[in-house]
């Protein structure tokens, strides 16, 4: 539902983000790097989408039990937008005066020339760009033309917005025990996953402040801004490798079936959910004809004998469940921070680090998994940093550079932690229902006694946990090969990794994107562990698009890594002996400052 309020908030998000990026660039000063128009607007949009809900949530937390007044809510969006627009206008004028547009035109001309070298290159390029624009427009149309209607979007996420909008934080709406309850704790209000963070709800509240009432449907169009912004950034970064790499990566992302639906036309792998998880593997049935049915049904609907039983696909991602938001904010956050590594061989400035920190904070504000993802990212960065320090020592590379990398990574995660701290400060008061995974892991290792009401599916010792490993691994494998949801992204990712592992194992570990690939693998491992200890019956859980929804959290980086592994630079494949800044093809402006 397109409303004036939704449009206003979308503009506020956009300009506040652009302004924040300009402000960060001012902080970067003379070390500021060049950003293309696509990258600037993509990052700007995402910064706004991370920043404004975070501000709203922090102000809400500060107000405690009373809600934010609509007028205040409006200014929480409009104030940063006005400042942001002014900052952006000033920066854009400076860039225009200095002729930055000429550089953009030169880049476009270069891409066109590169395309024209291939037979049918120009029509292919035009078709690719047209397809990207088509899917971006479809994302906007799809998000705007349907009411919010799915369980998670409404009851997990929008409801938090409703409670924030009318009641504020910390009251009985959040299942915090009412102070008037002296003894009777057996009666209360309910909220599904009450300790999920309030980022998506805060976005609903911002729109509601302008509308004068809460309406999840008015916020829905804004959900399309996440994939569109992500597409802009992927294109801007991949075009450095090749215009074809940029088109394939961007098109793969923006046309990813799972962005638009999780229920598929016809399932080619099926299992019985009533048979229980212990029979999940033996109950798996493969029906390859369902692939053909799906292809056919996608175009003709239920009109033929073959497609009569086909479902109309539907899904969470643009409906307002938080997985898409988390995936986009987290992946682009870590990619911005990654630029500060010498091995990335990318130009970078302080704005990348600061913006990366804000995006990571935004990721933590939409789902609890954001914290787990940040922990995985810290490990990924940490391992490669230690590896690079040890190598630098051997080759006498300056420690000062490593220190700068460390400071960059630490600054980004400190910003994320600082912005997330207000929520963490009150989260402990809100009960965790069903999903206390640290406790579940402690129970498995015998560090904590299982509570009396523990689910019979939850493992209570290591042996029971190990018995679930094949089930979880099969669940992941089924998801990876589900082309109806994931296209061939996962298949290509593993094929590209395997190719490098076999042909260039050393170069794979020295690759610019190794830390990011490690994060993708680390996240899959972490989610695998969580599924092993989950209290849910896995056969039922897999029927609710798990682990696919979790895989979405890393899919942008998987697409970036896969594209980079396929469209490799010569030095990445053949090596240049160092893998450090000395061999970088793009001068890092900070190094010369």
């Amino acid at each position, binding site marked *: 539902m397109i409303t004036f309020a939704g449009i206003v908030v979308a503009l506020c998000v956009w300009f506040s983000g652009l302004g924040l990026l300009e402000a960060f660039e001012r902080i970067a000063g*003379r*070390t*500021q790097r*060049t950003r293309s128009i696509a990258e600037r607007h993509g990052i700007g949009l995402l910064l706004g989408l991370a920043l404004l809900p975070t501000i709203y949530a922090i102000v809400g937390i500060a107000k405690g039990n009373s809600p934010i007044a609509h007028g205040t809510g409006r200014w929480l969006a409009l104030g940063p937008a006005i400042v942001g627009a002014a900052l952006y206008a000033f920066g854009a004028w400076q*860039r225009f005066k*200095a002729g930055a547009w000429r*550089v953009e035109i030169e880049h476009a001309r270069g891409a066109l020339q590169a395309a024209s070298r291939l037979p049918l290159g120009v029509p292919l390029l035009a078709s690719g760009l047209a*397809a990207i624009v088509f899917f971006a427009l*479809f994302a906007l149309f799809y998000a705007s*033309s349907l*009411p919010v*209607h799915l369980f998670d979007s409404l*009851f997990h996420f929008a*409801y938090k917005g409703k409670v924030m909008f*009318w*009641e504020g934080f910390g009251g*009985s*709406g959040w*299942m915090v025990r*009412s102070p*008037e*309850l*002296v*003894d*009777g704790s*057996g*009666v209360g*209000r*309910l*909220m*599904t996953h009450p300790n999920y963070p309030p980022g998506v709800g805060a976005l609903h509240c911002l729109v509601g402040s302008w509308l004068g009432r809460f309406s999840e449907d008015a916020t829905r169009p804004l959900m399309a801004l996440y994939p569109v912004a992500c597409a802009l950034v992927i294109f801007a970064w991949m075009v*450095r*490798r*090749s215009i074809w790499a940029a088109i*394939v990566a961007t098109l*793969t992302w923006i*046309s990813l*079936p799972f962005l*638009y639906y999780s229920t598929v036309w016809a399932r080619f792998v099926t299992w019985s959910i009533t048979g229980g998880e212990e029979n999940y593997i033996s109950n798996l049935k493969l029906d390859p004809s369902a692939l053909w049915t*799906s*292809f056919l*049904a*996608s*175009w003709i*609907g239920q009109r033929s004998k073959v497609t009569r039983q086909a479902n*109309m696909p539907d899904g969470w991602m643009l409906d307002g469940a938080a997985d898409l938001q988390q995936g986009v904010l987290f992946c682009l956050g870590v990619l911005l921070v990654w630029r500060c590594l010498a091995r990335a061989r990318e130009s970078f400035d302080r704005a990348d680090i600061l913006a990366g920190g804000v995006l990571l904070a935004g990721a933590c504000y939409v789902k609890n998994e954001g914290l787990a993802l940040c922990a995985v990212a810290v490990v990924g960065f940490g391992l490669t940093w230690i590896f690079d320090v040890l190598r630098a020592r051997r080759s006498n590379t300056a420690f000062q550079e490593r220190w700068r990398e460390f400071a960059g990574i630490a600054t980004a995660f400190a910003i994320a932690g600082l912005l997330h701290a207000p929520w963490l400060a009150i989260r402990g008061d809100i009960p965790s*229902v*069903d999903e206390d995974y640290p406790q579940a892991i402690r129970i498995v290792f015998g560090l904590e006694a299982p509570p009396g009401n523990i689910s019979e599916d939850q493992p209570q010792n290591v042996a029971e946990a190990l018995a679930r490993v094949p089930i979880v691994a099969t669940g992941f494998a089924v998801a990876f090969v589900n082309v109806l949801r994931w*296209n*061939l992204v996962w298949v290509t990712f593993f094929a590209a990794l395997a190719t490098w592992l076999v042909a260039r194992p050393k170069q794979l570990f020295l690759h610019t994107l190794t830390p990011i690939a490690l994060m993708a693998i680390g996240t899959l491992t972490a989610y695998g562990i969580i599924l092993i200890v989950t209290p*849910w019956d896995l056969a*039922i859980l897999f029927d609710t698009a798990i682990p696919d929804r979790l895989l979405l959290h890393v899919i942008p980086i998987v697409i970036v890594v896969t594209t980079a592994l396929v*469209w*490799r*630079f*010569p030095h990445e494949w053949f090596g240049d002996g160092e893998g450090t800044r000395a061999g970088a*093809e*793009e*001068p890092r*402006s900070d190094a010369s400052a």
Partner: protein
Amino acid sequence: VNDPTLTAAPAPPPAVLPPLPHLLGLALLGLVGCILTSGFAFRYFVIWERDRKGETIEVQRVTIEEAPWFKKDFTLVVDRIREVLPPGTRVFLEPTEFGKEDNQKARWMLYLTYYCHPVQIYVKKPVWAAGTIVDYPQWNNYHRQNPTVNMQEALALEELKIEWKLRMPFTWEFLAGEVYLERLVDGDWVAYDLWPFEPKQR
């Protein structure tokens, strides 16, 4: 102006072109996604034009058959409750009946909590009610075994100053005609007619 922001980065060396198998794989990658998603886009547009184009959000909601919370009977009751009770009113929800088998679509406590808000819905054993598909059968069983409030729960209702009660069956289908609103008057729950201007057989 010697502005470092405007220093064009030197063009990177061209990336190595992927060999033929990669190219074929990538062509397939693009093709699969584009065919599936553009097919979905096409069908979605056809359905949107047929069912939802130009309609109000309420009518659009009714077109989504899978969502029990958009069924007309349910929305009628919710609208009426929000008309009758001012925001912030505390209402105790008491199931009168359950289906033979648990059905996750019949989690009316969640749907009422969302759609009646800012009217506040209270239930017994809220943690089981708030659990998603893991815990709600426990909540159902508890109510099957304890259809009335026990002393502790009665005390809680008193402490919370709850003066309204909504009694309804938790069957798969939402039975609007069997939803009863009651008000606490002088210690007794007295029926409040939700539909004063409607024929009683609804």
